[in-house]
């Protein structure tokens, strides 16, 4: 019994310690904006590896998710004779939910894990320490550009995911199942609101990008500099990002669409 409380206590302390270290880490990374502003090449390079290299996985997943939505939506809507609304259904589910959430989960798996492993290995091979001894702040030099890149790329990737998903839904609904092309687009156009749906979806993906990138970078920076430590940190990145994204999605949905 006593053991249980001891363990509970130490786990709680560790959790709060991590929150504290994470907050300082975030502030430190934010303080590097000026440094990166003077060296835009650092940011461009990271946007390439975090963003551009995620294009393929995001596009292909978006296409399939859209196609599945087209199929499932058609089966359900046709029961009510409402298959003309397929466009609205596909677009609304993608723009509001699936676009930001699924692309954030894919982002955590593809880019987040790579960031954690990269920074963990830099720590293990003393590159971060070496930079410090050369009087260069490794957080500003290494972390800030990656953080900014994640923040910029995530909403763009989510938008790409939604756009390709809508095309996938169109391909199945209109191309295969014979939904009327005109009503597919016109119903979508009249029902999807720019501010209420698209901007809110963008805000969601910005929040997800912020948390997924921060988790990935912090886990890498905070890991034990051994091969086991790096592997554990990479796992934690994917698991914790998924929790954070799904939990935040619930809160944001309740706030945004609750009225």
């Amino acid at each position: 019994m006593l053991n249980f409380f001891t363990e509970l206590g130490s786990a709680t302390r560790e959790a709060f310690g991590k929150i504290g270290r994470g907050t300082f880490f975030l502030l430190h990374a934010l303080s590097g904006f000026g440094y990166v502003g003077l060296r835009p090449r650092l940011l461009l390079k990271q946007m390439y590896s975090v963003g551009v290299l995620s294009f393929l996985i995001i596009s292909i997943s978006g296409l399939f998710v859209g196609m599945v939505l087209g199929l499932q939506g058609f089966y359900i809507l046709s029961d009510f004779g409402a298959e003309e609304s397929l466009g609205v259904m596909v677009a609304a589910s993608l723009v509001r939910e699936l676009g930001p959430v699924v692309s954030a989960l894919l982002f955590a798996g593809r880019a987040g894990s790579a960031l954690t492993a990269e920074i963990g290995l830099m720590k293990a091979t003393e590159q971060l320490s070496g930079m410090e001894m050369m009087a260069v702040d490794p957080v500003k030099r290494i972390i800030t550009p990656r953080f900014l890149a994640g923040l910029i790329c995530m909403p763009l990737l989510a938008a790409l995911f939604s756009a390709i998903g809508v095309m996938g839904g169109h391909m199945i609904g209109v191309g295969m199942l014979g939904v009327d092309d005109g009503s597919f687009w016109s119903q979508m156009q009249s029902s999807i609101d720019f501010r209420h749906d698209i901007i809110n979806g963008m805000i969601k993906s910005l929040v997800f990008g912020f948390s997924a990138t921060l988790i990935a970078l912090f886990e890498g920076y905070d890991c034990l500099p051994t091969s086991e430590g790096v592997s554990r940190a990479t796992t934690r990145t994917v698991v914790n990002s998924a929790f954070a994204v799904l939990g935040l999605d619930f809160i944001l949905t309740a706030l945004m669409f609750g009225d």
Partner: protein
Amino acid sequence: MSNNEQNIVSIRNLCFSRGARKIFDGVSLEIPRGKITAIMGPSGTGKTTLLKLIGGQLRPASGQVIFDGSDVHSLSTRELFNLRKKMGMLFQSGALLTDMNVFDNVAFPLREHTRLPEPLIRSLVLIKLQAVGLRGARMLMPNELSGGMARRVALARAIALDPLMIMYDEPFTGQDPISMGVLVHLIKSLNQILGLTSIIVSHDVRETAEIADYIYLLADGKIIAQGAPRELEQSDSAWVQQFLHGYADGPVHFHYSADEYFADLLSGVN
């Protein structure tokens, strides 16, 4: 000459612990300017930790580290970073930045800390690379270098900003005899030609004793012995003799402390 001008680093009564383990328990030592000072001791005695304490990457529990007249651990971050420009450190792994080639690695501190025009940076980098004999390897990536070459590139990078002092962390570990010889020669000649001060942390007795002017022997958080290599050789301390000659048994036991052997064996039977 005052004490401060004579010694580039003075460490006074340094205590440092990791968790419950005391790594340093009141260590005091002086590093004289222009000399090669070696800090030796068995693995795990915190030799690398000592370098990190001098560089201000770790904070001691108590005690002082004075580098070139300023107390390292009472400085602000900005002052500490300025101080670090005066010291170079050679990490055991080299710590080269793996996403840049050799040239850019050596140019890195120059580009970060100076506003020199690119042609001048190029000349400076080539001069430093020539000094370590790797001018021809400037376009290689770090993963294409052998361990010895990586260390020489790191050395070129460490002297890029013309520091006052270089700290070498286990420079000879895992090197073949030829690159070992090259490194020994380089450390010695750079120290002379550039008027540097060098601190070598190592447990390679022969190579270190060959070039060091003064040796501190560190064990169990304390300085056990010190002196010029010749003096230590003649030391009558059994511990020093065991360390210098690598005897398997002596004051440092071959067996990790354990229960009595027979009792331990028999306790497994029924």
